[in-house]
């Protein structure tokens, strides 16, 4: 049965059955909600901060899409909302760019990195590997606070006199280094850099925790090849982040020096606002290399956890193992490795050495291979499955669909000569929105609907879920597909209006279609917002394992306790994908159920089954006999005082 050999590194001291005395851990408001060190609470904090930021980010896009669709119309409500940034109801072009910049920054970093990885890593890693909490709950708490205060600093930049950073989310110098080039490059830019540094520190702290926890705190029987794919993905992107964020922080610090201290890392030969600046010898391409060295792995830091979520959702709701688990693991590692050697495909037309164009064409196309293997494997997971088309499954299928639509155009952009007419056009905008802005976000939505019962003990409303899904699927396609055609027509991105060129103005009618679809899709997200907050308090109470899933998080009590399991940690006997196994009494077998448990007739599939009756078992006697336990013998759930003070706890390092 078990095709996965338990390796020596997973041999682990089994939790003996002792429980801490009944000093219940009393949390004050501050330690429970604000400075929580419990990974589940931190997950909620990341989720809500991420979604709120994300909603602000897409609202910004509603405003600038309005400008693009109706460039000659005055909108009085804009003046009411934005004051001096929309005089006479016409959006100021510099502020237009500020909106575009903040839209990109908030959504790429805050929603898709912090909100996606932060939430699901915190929620799932300890629970799915059978640990009490993260390796360092204190640093975990700090990681959220750096993330949160970075958010505050970024949002504050909206309110400064000269406006927020406006040089694009990529903030290329000299535009971003010279306040006289653009108003947003003054204080707004300093605040942007500050918030990014805070953000990165938070991400790195989180990443350290994830890596340490996955490597050291897996429960007995949880070998690396028995980990759910989402854990593999989160572990891998933690490593990716640790290696790729620091060069970008270096880039931002050098940018700050050029901006405020008159250095010339990037600046040279500049005559602006009637003055010749003294800086000579710097080169902007240094910034481009440093930034994109992060920039490209960053998009895989976004994508890999999203695909990991899709793996879990598709296998669980198709009642079938993920197809090709080993290939999926190798693909995650392969994508992560190759993502480090493709960055200069963002720089094909920058004037760098043309030889690099050839090299990076080859490496960029290489990454298509593991990516395509993953997509095929999702489709073949559905093959011969029994598909439950509930809301999480719909979003997971949507993730795959949008990855097809968006990923295929990577073949054009990754080839240097074809990138010549397409670089910085709407073709690129369509491509990255479909893969990141839609595909990854759909995975985030799907994961939210799927794990909502684990986070809040209630179900989200299914019907509203279907409505949200279909409106968003249709709307997002209507918004981004037309952009491909615009790109083939050469329409550049980051343009305030299409009215000044003959070859752009012929696309004006499509702009109206895109804007209308965008506004409708943004409105559709209100359904999700309502569903999310309403279900949190008044949703149908969830059973312990509503989706009949195998992974360990569904064996933890519905009501959160510190330490995740009141007694012993579960012991893992199989991989997470034993769905519809022939000979099994149900179409799923949770990881903590052994073949012996099945043989002695444990009815684990019933709704009122209590996992603790299997998890909390006395140590095996010398002859391997185990006393049968009935649910009545299970110890009552008790709060564990401090997860790191368990004497035999999972935090002792494994070999």
């Amino acid at each position, binding site marked *: 049965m078990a095709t996965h050999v338990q390796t020596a590194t997973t041999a682990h001291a089994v939790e003996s059955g002792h429980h801490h005395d009944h000093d219940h851990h009393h949390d004050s408001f501050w330690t429970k909600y604000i400075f929580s060190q419990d990974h589940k609470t931190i997950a909620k904090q990341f989720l809500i901060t991420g979604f709120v930021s994300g909603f602000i980010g897409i609202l910004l896009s509603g405003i600038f899409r309005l400008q693009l669709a109706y460039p000659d119309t*005055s909108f009085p*409500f804009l003046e009411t909302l934005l004051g001096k940034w929309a005089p006479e109801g016409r959006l100021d072009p510099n502020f237009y760019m500020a909106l575009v910049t903040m839209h990109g920054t908030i959504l790429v970093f805050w929603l898709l990195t912090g909100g996606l990885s932060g939430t699901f890593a915190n929620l799932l890693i300890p629970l799915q590997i059978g640990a009490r909490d993260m390796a360092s709950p204190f640093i975990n708490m700090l990681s959220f606070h750096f993330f949160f205060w970075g958010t505050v600093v970024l949002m504050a930049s909206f309110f400064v006199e000269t406006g927020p950073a406006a040089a694009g989310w990529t903030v290329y*110098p000299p535009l971003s280094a010279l306040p006289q080039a653009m108003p947003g490059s003054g204080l707004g830019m300093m605040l942007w850099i500050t918030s990014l540094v805070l953000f990165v520190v938070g991400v790195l702290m989180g990443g350290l925790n994830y890596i340490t926890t996955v490597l050291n705190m897996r429960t007995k029987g949880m070998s690396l090849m028995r980990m759910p794919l989402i854990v593999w993905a989160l572990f891998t992107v933690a490593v990716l982040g640790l290696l790729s964020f620091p060069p970008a922080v270096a880039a931002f610090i050098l940018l700050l020096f050029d901006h405020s201290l008159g250095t010339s890392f990037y600046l040279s030969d500049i005559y*602006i606002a009637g003055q*010749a600046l003294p800086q000579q010898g710097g080169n902007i391409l240094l910034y481009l290399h440093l930034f994109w060295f992060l920039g490209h792995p960053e998009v895989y830091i976004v994508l890999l956890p999203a695909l990991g979520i899709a793996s879990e959702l598709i296998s669980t709701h198709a009642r079938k193992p993920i197809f090709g688990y080993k290939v999926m693991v190798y693909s995650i590692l392969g994508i992560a490795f190759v993502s480090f050697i493709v960055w200069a495909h963002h720089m094909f037309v920058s004037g760098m050495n043309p030889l690099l164009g050839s090299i990076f064409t080859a490496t960029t196309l*290489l990454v298509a291979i593991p990516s395509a293997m993953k997509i095929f494997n999702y489709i073949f997971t559905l093959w011969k499955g029994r598909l439950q088309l509930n809301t999480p499954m719909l979003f997971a*299928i949507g993730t795959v669909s949008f990855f097809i639509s968006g990923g295929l155009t990577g073949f054009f952009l990754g*080839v240097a000569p*074809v990138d010549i007419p397409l670089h910085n056009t709407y073709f690129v905008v369509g491509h990255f929105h479909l893969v990141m802005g839609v595909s990854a976000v759909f995975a985030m939505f799907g994961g939210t609907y799927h794990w909502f019962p684990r986070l809040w003990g209630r179900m989200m409303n299914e019907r509203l879920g279907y409505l949200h899904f279909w409106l968003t699927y249709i709307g997002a396609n209507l918004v981004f597909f037309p952009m491909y055609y615009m790109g083939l027509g050469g329409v550049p991105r980051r343009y305030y209006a299409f009215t000044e060129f003959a070859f752009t103005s012929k696309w004006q009618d*499509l702009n109206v279609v895109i804007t209308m679809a965008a506004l409708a899709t943004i409105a559709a997200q209100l359904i999700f917002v309502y569903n999310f907050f309403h279900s949190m308090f008044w949703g149908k109470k969830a059973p312990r394992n509503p989706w009949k899933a195998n992974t360990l998080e569904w064996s933890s009590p519905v009501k959160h306790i510190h330490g995740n399991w009141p007694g012993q940690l579960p012991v893992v006997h199989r991989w997470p994908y034993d769905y519809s196994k022939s000979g099994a009494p149900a179409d799923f077998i949770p990881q903590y159920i052994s073949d012996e448990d099945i043989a002695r007739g444990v009815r684990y599939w019933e709704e009122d089954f209590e996992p603790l009756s299997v998890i909390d078992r006395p140590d095996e006697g010398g002859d391997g006999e185990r006393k049968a336990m009935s649910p009545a013998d299970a110890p009552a759930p008790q709060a564990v005082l401090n997860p790191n003070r368990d004497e035999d706890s999972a935090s002792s390092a494994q070999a």
Partner: protein
Amino acid sequence: MKCMRWIGAVGLAAPLWAQIGAAAKARAAEIAMEAVKSAPAFSWESLLWKVVWLEVIAVIILSFLLVWVVIRATGWDPFATWDRDKNNMRLWMLVGLVFFALVLWSAPHYADRYLPEPASLHGVPIDRLLWGIASFTYPAFFIVHLMLFYMIWRYYNGRVRAATYMETHHGIERGALIAISIPVVTIAVAGIYVWSQPVHGQSPEPGQKEIELEVVAEQFQWRARYAGQDGKLGRYHYTLIGGDNVLGIDFTDVKAQDDIIPQLKEIHLPVGALVTIHVRSKDVLHSLYLPHFRTHIYAVPGQKNKVMLVPTITTREMRKKLGDPDFDYELACNQLCGGAHYNMRMKVVVESWEEYEAWLRQQKPAYQPAQPQPVQAELRMQPNQNS
């Protein structure tokens, strides 16, 4: 009923709503008055569209409200016997069909707005490669989506009694690997070839004319400088910029003294000649984007970039091909450079060698000072403008 609480809350707040409504109406009237005073010419058509959109939105919201009220009032549960899996499957089939139809219809429908045939020698293999890649991705889009939709149609919950356990299938994995590797390798090899030969391997044919010009980007316009009689561009330095010397040309350099900066905002290129364009920027990053020629390179302050191209279709010929007597080649900026980034336009004219020479002869050389001495601009630290 729980909704009683809602109705009660709404009702109690009625005076508040009334006040808010009155204030909103007054503010709306204020705004309307201001709009009327400062509005551009009134357009019935745009008003009609605004009203139509408002009505559409109102109808949608009201129908939702109506359905909700009916459900609450009668206790009817439309989802009681609703087959979730079958109906979502049907929606996938419907939406998928409409999606396919729209994609199939739209790609050729907008084809007349894509970039026309390339107007340069190296543009031809670029376009050929682009459409070659499309001949793979376009069918792949449909095939892979069809596979996805098929799985939904064939294996949704109502149609299958049990899933079939399988960890993998080596034949399928191998087939998928081959299926993706062949296009990847083919496209990579083709791409590297086109990049190194047609694009970067341009050199003059025997007897082919060559010209060199410089295009300089600044916030927010393009300037061009042509080599004069000597066929060479002179030195420049950014500290020499000032007064009429907008490009910082060093007039102590003999080669610079006959350089030409066209007074009109247009560039002329001779058809069939090998054109070398030196691209630089005075202030921030810009990008020289000549979409019709498939030419694109950043204008980097402090770095000397250059592109080469051979124009193959004159403006007059292209106008005839497109049936558009007003067509002009356009130079656009394609790297964000500030507020007016969208408005950096320069006309590009391609004409015969004789017409080109005649045009160039009419242009005045660049400003020449009375004494051929460089005027050194004063180096100043820029004040920190961090407000």
